[in-house]
């Protein structure tokens, strides 16, 4: 066990692509634990998907041993944080486990929206901020300007910030020394009752749930009976230890200031909520640590197997994913058009995309998903208030007194030349402008209130395409406001397709309805009869397109007696029909359901 004064608990915060994972790798290398041979790029991101997308989805931690210039050995606990707004709460719990944060800023890009958002989060947690200028090897690097930016915008001294290239291993020693000198050692009382903060947990098939935690006060030993203060669950600790880059290192006990893991034959990550406080059953702390929050999904969508027979497979896959992801929620639902599936809730759009991709990639499932929806609050004329996550459940207009929708505070950082484009976009998305601050001569930050349902469709794509990819964006939920919302239904040949219904602001219904009708017209093949596609609000048809009747489907010349081939062609055609969804009398290909998810051209 290390002396508290030789422990440093820190995290790295950065905008996506500014080099967080690369710096983490270099720190690991320099502390001599990872050999060149074992090194995989970006060690901390251990899911395949994370590596591909270059984002960190779930927090991980690692314990490094560093012999500093003062001759002493230090334990450096690097706690990795998810870099995306969907995982803000998890970020906040990781930050709460640290005393300091390395703030990486790209020497060419400068400060971006996520840098700022995470910085403010770190300041909220009283972390010592340690700026680092990365990518100084780039020809476009402008480290001095970026230092000025940090001092002006964030208001922290940065003239001593190490100027490094994580990619090329330049300046890494300096970063390690700075961690030792600038980041405070943990405080905390070993003698006090145990308080340890859970900042991550995941399910392991052999050990059960593995909890990652930081001891704030007290001590935790193997064999202790712990109590998780929020869930109230109690477990006997099987194993405690440290998190080395190469694996677990068992220890007898962990004391105040230390970071490590424990296992206790826990079956379910739902019991080990991030942010919960671990204490001892026998000598419990009086109060839990502050900041625990039950995270609730913000975005919902229906997920259906493309092949109805795969429903059970989908259910199992979701259950397995949930073992490691307490924020994923799902419950069975049925759709007339899509059959049996699940309504799934996610922290945000990225979280949703990640889950969909993992289901398809890791579990080999073909999915049909419905348009994402947020949770609307409906107050009925009888005074009852209900949450609507599935548009199909929206009550009839006559029963609704009023509706509310979630609003987010959005910060958009953008080169000044694109400010006009972004304002136009935000206005189009029903944004309410607050103000604009200039970061420097070339960049501005726009502050808007935006309805969440306007950003869950394709806002991010629209943002990127209107700024040549230069805009960065960050948001957090700020509350609910009353809104004139309507349910838009799509009818094919007069039959409503439940899976295509969604809730939309009245002012947008017409344009959205028309766009969807057009998209469907493109993706539904001609059939034996004419198919009207209608978009309707209540009983009112607001848009109409027609898929004309099939004129021709004929194998022209049947030549040379090759009947087998003709038959195979017909059989193939018949098979193709089987893969379509039957909606009333209309055959709808899977792609049609997906085509309405991206409406922006």
């Amino acid at each position, binding site marked *: 066990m290390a002396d508290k004064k030789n422990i440093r608990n820190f995290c790295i915060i950065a905008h996506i692509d500014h080099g967080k994972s690369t710096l983490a790798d270099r720190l690991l290398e320099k502390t001599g634990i990872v050999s060149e041979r074992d090194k995989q790029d970006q060690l901390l991101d251990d899911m395949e998907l994370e590596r591909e997308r270059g984002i960190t989805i779930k927090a991980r931690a690692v314990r490094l041993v560093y012999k500093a210039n003062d001759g002493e050995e230090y334990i450096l606990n690097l706690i990795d944080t998810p870099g995306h707004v969907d995982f803000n709460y998890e970020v906040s719990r990781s930050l709460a486990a640290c005393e300091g944060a390395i703030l990486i800023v790209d020497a060419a890009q400068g400060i971006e929206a996520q840098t700022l958002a995470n910085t403010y989060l770190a300041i909220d947690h009283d972390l010592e901020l340690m700026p680092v200028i990365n990518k100084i090897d780039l020809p476009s690097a402008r480290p001095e300007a970026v230092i000025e930016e940090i001092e002006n915008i964030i208001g922290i001294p940065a003239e001593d910030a190490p100027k490094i290239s994580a990619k090329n291993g330049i300046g890494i020693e300096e970063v390690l020394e700075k961690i030792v000198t600038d980041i405070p050692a943990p405080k905390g009382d070993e003698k006090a009752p145990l308080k340890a903060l859970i900042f991550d947990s995941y399910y392991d098939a052999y050990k059960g749930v593995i909890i990652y935690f930081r001891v704030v006060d007290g001590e935790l030993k193997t064999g202790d009976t712990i109590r998780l203060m929020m869930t109230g669950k109690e477990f006997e600790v099987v194993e405690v230890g440290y998190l080395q880059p190469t694996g677990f290192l068992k220890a007898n006990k962990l004391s105040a200031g230390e970071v490590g893991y424990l296992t206790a034959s826990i079956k379910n990550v739902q019991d080990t909520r991030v942010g919960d406080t671990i204490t001892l059953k026998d000598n419990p702390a009086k109060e839990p640590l502050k900041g625990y929050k039950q995270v609730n999904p913000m975005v919902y969508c229906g997920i259906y197997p493309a092949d109805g027979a795969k429903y059970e497979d989908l259910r199992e896959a979701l259950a397995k994913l949930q073992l490691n992801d307490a924020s994923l929620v799902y419950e069975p639902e049925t759709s007339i058009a899509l059959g049996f599936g699940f309504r799934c809730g996610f922290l945000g759009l990225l979280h949703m995309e990640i889950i969909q991709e993992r289901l398809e990639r890791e579990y080999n499932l073909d999915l049909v998903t419905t348009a994402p929806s947020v949770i609307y609050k409906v107050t009925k004329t009888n005074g009852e208030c209900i949450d609507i996550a599935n548009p199909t459940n929206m009550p009839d207009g006559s029963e609704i007194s009023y509706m509310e929708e979630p609003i987010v505070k959005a910060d958009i950082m953008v080169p000044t030349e694109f400010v006009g484009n972004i304002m136009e976009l935000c206005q189009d998305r029903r944004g309410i402008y607050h103000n604009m601050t200039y970061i420097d001569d070339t960049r501005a930050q726009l502050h808007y209130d935006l309805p969440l349902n306007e950003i869950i469709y394709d806002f991010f794509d629209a943002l990127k395409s209107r700024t040549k990819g230069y805009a960065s964006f960050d948001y957090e939920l700020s509350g609910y406001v009353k809104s004139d919302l309507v349910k838009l239904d799509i009818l094919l040949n007069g039959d409503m397709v439940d899976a295509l219904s969604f809730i939309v602001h009245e002012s947008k219904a017409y344009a959205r309805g028309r766009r969807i009708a057009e998209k469907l017209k493109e993706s539904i093949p001609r059939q034996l009869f004419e198919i009207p596609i209608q978009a309707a609000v209540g009983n009112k048809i607001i848009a109409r397109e027609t898929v004309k009747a099939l004129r*021709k489907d004929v194998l022209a010349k049947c030549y040379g007696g090759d009947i087998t081939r003709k*038959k195979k062609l017909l059989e193939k055609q018949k098979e193709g029909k089987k893969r379509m969804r039957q909606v009333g009398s209309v055959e709808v290909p899977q792609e049609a359901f997906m085509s309405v998810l991206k409406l922006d051209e």
Partner: protein
Amino acid sequence: MNGLYIHLPFCLKKCLYCDFVSFSDCFSKAPVYIDALICEMQEYRGEKLDTVYFGGGTPTSLPEELLLKLICAVFENFEVKKNAEITVECNPKTAGLSYFKNLKNAGVNRLSIGTQSLNDSELAFLGRVHSAEDAKKCILDAKKAGFENINADLMFGLGIQTKESVLASLDELISLKIPHISCYSLIIEENTPFGKMEREGKLKLMDEDTERDIYLSISKSLIKNGYNHYEISNYAKDGYLSCHNTKYWKRAPYIGLGAASHSFYQNKRFQNPDGICEYIDFVKNKGRRTKEIVSQDDAISEFMFLGLRMLSGISKNEFKKEFGFCLNDIFQKEINELTALNLLEENGDILRLTPRGIDVSNEVFIRFLI
């Protein structure tokens, strides 16, 4: 009584749309190939034939003596019925008056001429080796040689075609008094130059609606001029329908000889190897074919989707005679749906495609696959 199909996979040049087995660079193998065909005939020696069809490829791209040798061999090895229909396919560039006279003397009594169009730009678009003038001369030569029973092919649905240009070609064929006209729409097959052009977006296509308008005009014009629309893509004056092709629709037996040829023989379907050399080796080594026994379900499906290609339709009595139970017993639901959609019409014993049913015949056929 059997039909005989002999495949001659030789062409001066491959057309851009063609995915039949045929080669433009294998003429040196033709003599050996003909010998292989004659050798393969021995397997069926003595079988009775009432139709013979020399198809390709372009049979008439072969030197006359080779083709004549093959025709003689058919008469020697099979029992060819008197007045049997004996067809040779030809391409306007490959055969002239004396070739036709020799074919006639050898016993051939029907020609199928690959005119495709009588418009030079359309012919060039298709990659045909002949001109419109060549095609007309070919038809006149055939008549001069004494052939009356002639088919001409007419293709429509080409991206560069107009209704006027197709009808102009058709009018010429009609005025040349061709008694059988096979009209079919261009189908873009994957493994052809057209297929590649389509994938690359370089092929001008015709939209579905224009194509059907053209088809309707063609059909109307032919019927007005005394042709019977007897099969989805075939029109004939009284007494001139193709007996050989009709065997395919009626599920009559036929023997296929040559590379890539298909047989329906003793209730089995089977196919020869595709390549010329592979075929020659196959015959030399007395290779075995994979024979597919046609199950009752397959037979029922075939009965429906082949039989319905004939515009006279299928007979429920014949169905019952063949399979021992009523057509309506297994397909009542399909028949009801399809008649409701005006794709099929039921008239006493007969079930047949409506004009609308012809347009979307695949949609009808797939309902009858078991």
